């Protein structure tokens, strides 16, 4: 149960009016006012990573580390840009979704965060809830927006070749945003009309919740010795719902944290230079976390099976062919070119880590209080086992890094459960999890 405490009456009497400032945060409970936000960020790259064939003699270009020194893994050439953050990250080997091999391999991005049995879905459904939305469900009452869903292409794309990696509680795809300026406007300068509409909506909800409380109390007076616990539970839950709604309403008035937005390149689009685009999006993610606008972010960096504009990025970068084409390469030059695209992505990721390290929380950096998941739904293309996965950040959430962990056929869902536990979300299971990962990185979570 959340620790949010908010006495509504005191709130309304003491703080009504427009000039709400930071003390309001205190009224919203310790989770908002005192505790450092615990955040989650998932970054997806399609078509797997380059894991060159032995015979080519370019092992150093493998995305997974292939060498060790003094008992520690050595970064490969394509992940070298991440070396400064080695104390903040771990490579995870051997992970997979058990449903992965049963489904067509191209659906791996659809199930990456959900683990759903796409070959045999529940009747009437396609997918199931994604990890980011479970995080959002449990953090939304502490911040302004439940989640931020980003992708290289806007919208939801084409299910089975999805354009978003975020799936709602009902398993429906959540449309992604892809334009830095639009994302900025929505996050940092909400437009008047939508604010008015949002406020109206919240006010109506609060009014109805209030009326339900009234109705429940009327009932309670009529009840004799009936099972009091259940009614108590109902009223406490109702109180909590009301508090959350009021908190949401108040967020609208609370001024945003002051930040320097002057360095943002909001003119970048997915048709600009790929590096410019990714960096602009990563800057926005860091700023959104810093201002505690949301605690759950996903970003689909590129799409499976040659869908969308990102397929052309390797060509723009002078690697000679499209992303999907390169991922299928088995020859040495092809696998090398593919690895060089991995290198490009590592450079962008390093930029995000840099930003997350620059911003400080009260205790540690943003990165220390954020679990960043980076990976793909295929190891090399079409291979749904040993999914390339990197976990970064979260040292203040109990994560211990600087490891290349490996366990054959370990379940992604178990790791996801570990992620949830590390974020303080006490869930019993996630998708087809059989428990938590229970490894050196997540400790007991």
């Amino acid at each position, binding site marked *: 149960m959340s620790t949010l405490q908010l006495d509504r009456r005191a709130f309304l009497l003491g703080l009504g009016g427009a000039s709400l400032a930071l003390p309001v945060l205190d009224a919203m409970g310790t989770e908002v006012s005192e505790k450092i936000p615990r955040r989650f960020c998932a970054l997806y790259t399609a078509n797997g990573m380059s894991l060159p064939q032995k015979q080519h003699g370019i092992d150093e270009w493998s995305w997974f580390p292939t060498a060790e020194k003094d008992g520690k893994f050595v970064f490969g050439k394509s992940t070298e840009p991440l070396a400064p953050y080695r104390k903040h990250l771990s490579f995870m080997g051997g992970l997979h979704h058990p449903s992965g091999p049963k489904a067509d391999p191209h659906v791996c991005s659809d199930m990456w965060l959900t683990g759903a049995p796409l070959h045999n879905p529940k009747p*009437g459904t396609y997918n199931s809830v994604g990890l980011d939305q479970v995080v959002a469900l449990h953090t939304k009452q502490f911040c302004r927006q439940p989640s931020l869903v980003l992708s290289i292409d806007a919208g939801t794309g084409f299910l089975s070749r999805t354009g978003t990696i975020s799936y709602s509680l009902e398993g429906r795809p959540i449309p992604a945003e892809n334009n830095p300026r639009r994302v900025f406007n929505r996050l940092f300068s909400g437009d008047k009309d939508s604010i008015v509409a949002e406020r109206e909506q919240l006010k109506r909800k609060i009014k109805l919740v209030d009326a339900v409380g009234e109705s429940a109390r009327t009932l309670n007076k*009529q009840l004799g*010795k009936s099972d009091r616990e259940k009614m108590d539970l109902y009223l406490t839950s109702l109180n909590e719902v009301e508090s959350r709604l009021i908190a949401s309403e108040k967020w609208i008035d609370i001024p945003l944290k002051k930040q320097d937005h002057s360095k943002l390149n909001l003119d970048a689009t997915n048709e600009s230079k790929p590096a410019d685009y990714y960096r602009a999006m990563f800057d926005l993610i860091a700023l959104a976390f810093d201002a505690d606008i949301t605690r759950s972010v996903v970003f689909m960096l590129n799409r499976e099976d040659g869908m969308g504009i990102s397929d052309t990025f390797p060509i723009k970068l002078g690697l000679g062919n499209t992303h999907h084409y390169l991922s299928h390469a088995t020859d040495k030059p092809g696998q090398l070119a593919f690895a060089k695209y991995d290198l490009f992505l590592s450079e962008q990721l390093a930029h995000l880590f840099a930003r997350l390290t620059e911003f400080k929380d009260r205790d540690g950096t943003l990165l220390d209080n954020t679990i960043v998941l980076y990976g793909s739904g295929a190891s090399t293309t079409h291979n749904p086992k040993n999914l390339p996965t990197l976990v970064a950040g979260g040292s203040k959430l109990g994560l211990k890094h600087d490891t290349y962990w490996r366990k054959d056929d370990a379940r992604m869902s178990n790791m996801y459960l570990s992620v949830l536990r590390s974020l303080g979300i006490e869930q019993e299971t996630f998708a087809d999890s059989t428990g938590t990962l229970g490894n050196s990185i997540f400790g007991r979570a």
Partner: protein
Amino acid sequence: MTSARRWFLLLALLFMATPARSDDAATLEKSFDLSVKPFLKSHCVRCHNADKMTSGVRVDHLDAKLEDRHLKLWEHVLKQTKSAAMPPEDAKQPSADERKRAVEWMEQAIMVARSRPTPKNGSVRRLTVAQYRNTLRDLLRLDDNIADILPPDAVSRDGFVNNSETLQLSPLLLEAYFDIADQALSRCLVDPKAKPTIQSFRVDLGAGINAKPIKDNLVLGADSLLIDKRDFTVEERKPSKSFAFEPFKMQTKYRFIEGYAGNDTVRGWREYENIYHSVFACMRGSHGYPKGRAYSTVPEGLLLRPAIPSSELFGESSTYGPRANFKIALRELPDAGRFRVTVLAAKYDDGLMLDPGTKPLETPDSLVCRDFKSVTVKTPGVYQVDIHAAKMAKSAEVTLKLGERSFTGTPNQPAFLTVRLPAGPLLVGITGMTLERIVFTPLAAESDLAKRFTSFEKRLPQIGVHMGFRRDCGSTLSPVGVPQTVTGEKLMKYVFEGAVQNFPDPNVEKDNVNYLAGVREIGVRSEYTDGRDMPRLLIRSVEFEGPLYDTWPPATHRNIFPDDTQDAKKVIREFAGRAFRRPINAQEEASLFAVFEKAIKGGTSFQNGVKDAVQVVLTSPQFLFLIENSSTPAAEPLDQYELASKLSYFLWNGPPDATTLKLATSGELTKKLDAEVERMIADPRFSQFAGEFANQWLALDKFAVLEPDRKKFPKLTRDARTQLREEPVKFLEYVMRNNLPVRNLITSDFVMANEVVANYYGLTSESGFKFEPIRHGRRDLGGILTEPAILAGLSDGRESNPVKRGAWLARRIIAEPPDDPPPNVPALTEDTKKLSLRERLEKHRNQAGCAQCHAKIDPWGVPFEEFDAGGLFKTAKVDARSRLPDKTEVADFAALQKYLAEDRIDQVAFSVLKHLAIYATGCNLTYSELEFMRKDGLRLKSDGYRMRDMIRYVISSKMFLEK
């Protein structure tokens, strides 16, 4: 602390009655401290404590209160102490006197505990997810499954989800109730003055019916088996309605940047304008068919053979759907609301394609056709048709035309077809292969082939409609309603209806730029049942209409606003009365009306003001909870409305209907209880009970998630599993509706099966998808114990598991649940893998910590070893001898069945009563309630413990009728 919580604690304190302690209790407690506690401490606790639970037993927490939950343990301790089985021989022994004092105390205390009355303080129980869904659907007449976002209910110890102890409530759940109510009402209510928009179109099918086919090549990605563009037409329609509406115009202009060139990724904008880019008829799925062509177009329409399911597992079989897999692909459907798909279809006057290896025939009566133009049939009847290829002709797909009829296949032999021919001249046509002659040989009525043909031509195709969307690797489809039997060779309309929102949706954005993304599908199939030859299904046209309104405003709107009344109080009062399942009182009315008034004051319209009040109703505890209001700790009878709800949520898993509520209003429900229960059991809604109860009591959810080994159990396809899962439900419903003796659960001379289930058993049925009782005459069938939904569900999909099956039988069927496994059970060492199953079980049983429970579990499971993990009798001889916990020896499964049905039938009946009662009341039963029922229930024995009688027994018991 929130103010509500404070307020509650205060109330709770005020109301907490302090029961006067009886002298008995005081004396017992004193002597417990004096003699029993020291006795336990010095003789038992050393081995039976929290850390070291020898044989899974601890007694260190026992005290003089003898709480209900400890009674069983106390009885066990008494037994062990009295018989001097404990302490073990090698331990320090108590003196005879010490033992006697302890035994006497235990006997007396247990007696007192058994006779103490259980306080009855009413109950407040949340609706389960299924009950909530049924209630909302009934109340709002809304078909949408909007309750799907609710998390599943927790399962109680006895397997039920309606247990008041396990039904939780949380802010998240409450938020979901608010959202659902909001969404549901938005879908129910319309602006009565606005004109609705209705989408309707029809796809006609037939060879060459489209004189102006689209010029573009239609591209539908990987493994699309397209239908010729000349063989279908698409036409937008304006259905006739009694009210004004706007026909929806489908978009026909499109711009795409990828996906229009097969499976490749191509980029570059292309523009399209044609209705055939909006709606197209197509096939997709696995290629080929065992005999004949999976589908073909003839002038009258499209012919389909039964859709052979594919496992859709990547790498094992096609993920592109069954053979034959016809669908209409389209880009636009309404966002929400009901829809109707009307298929004009018939059974084709078909011939039976001959099996490979069938010998050609030629007799003096044969008609030989060498001109490939016509023959004259003198004697009407069943003929074998052999097509003899010309020398050098290669085997190829041929189409034989006989009159108007058409038969396509790729034969490797002359024997081709068996067909009924009328007397008279018959036009003959052949394409695809050069023939030497065609021979028509009349078959004697008693010949095997003629008999086979006669039963073939009687078979009726099952038409099914599906809806969903296209994936690149297949489709995600859900059935619309249930398959319908196509009754004759005359074209007839088959109507399928559903709610759009209940079907998988590609959720694509409006301006999506991929040709193949966001393609929705309406599939029409001849459904596969058992693989026997089936006359083809002829589809002439498929028509869509949605949103489907019979009236305007629609029924969902008029359900809340029956007329033009502006009397908000009346509207709210009537709706709330139905929602609360009783008339609302003055305070409730006042507080709900206040919601409306407040909204109106805030400038809201009349309709939205009422909507606000109705939304409050739908999230109020009076709606979400089943409340039995009690004012004293003594037992009181349920009031009439409480009784109405308790009955309907038991027997229908949904709200009471107007008839029951009317009886409650007139105060006659208790008096007419028997007749009302009979009516409710006879009602179709009783199926909702059967499904819910069977699923939970028999733990069928395990089967639902089973992933059987495909190689070992090829017949256990997804479609077969769907039907097999229904079997226990249909069986239970049948024995209940027909008031059969409980013995049928253990052994019955019939099974409830449809064609799919019968085929799984190797039986034959002609019932299509309808479950009907079939006599089986076999020793491996009958009752529920032999059902694959149970036996396979209690396996891992590869090997049968006697431990799971044994535990299931002990818990569910004879109500002798084993104790929970103790904590820290040591795992069996790896080397046991080499041992035989029997040896492994023995090893398990002999291991300290396991023995206690497994001795009560495994023996029940061993006789089931005659069944494999797919729930069928193993072909190899199996050693299924077992010595049951009560020392009875059974030789095999049949002996176990006989033993249960004869010697232990009281126990089986008690188990049914117990589970029914727990389910009916939604509460755990107390020790004394259970023990009372164990003895009192014997009254039903003389009549064989009939199933409906047992339901009535539970309903007429105090457990049910008092609060």
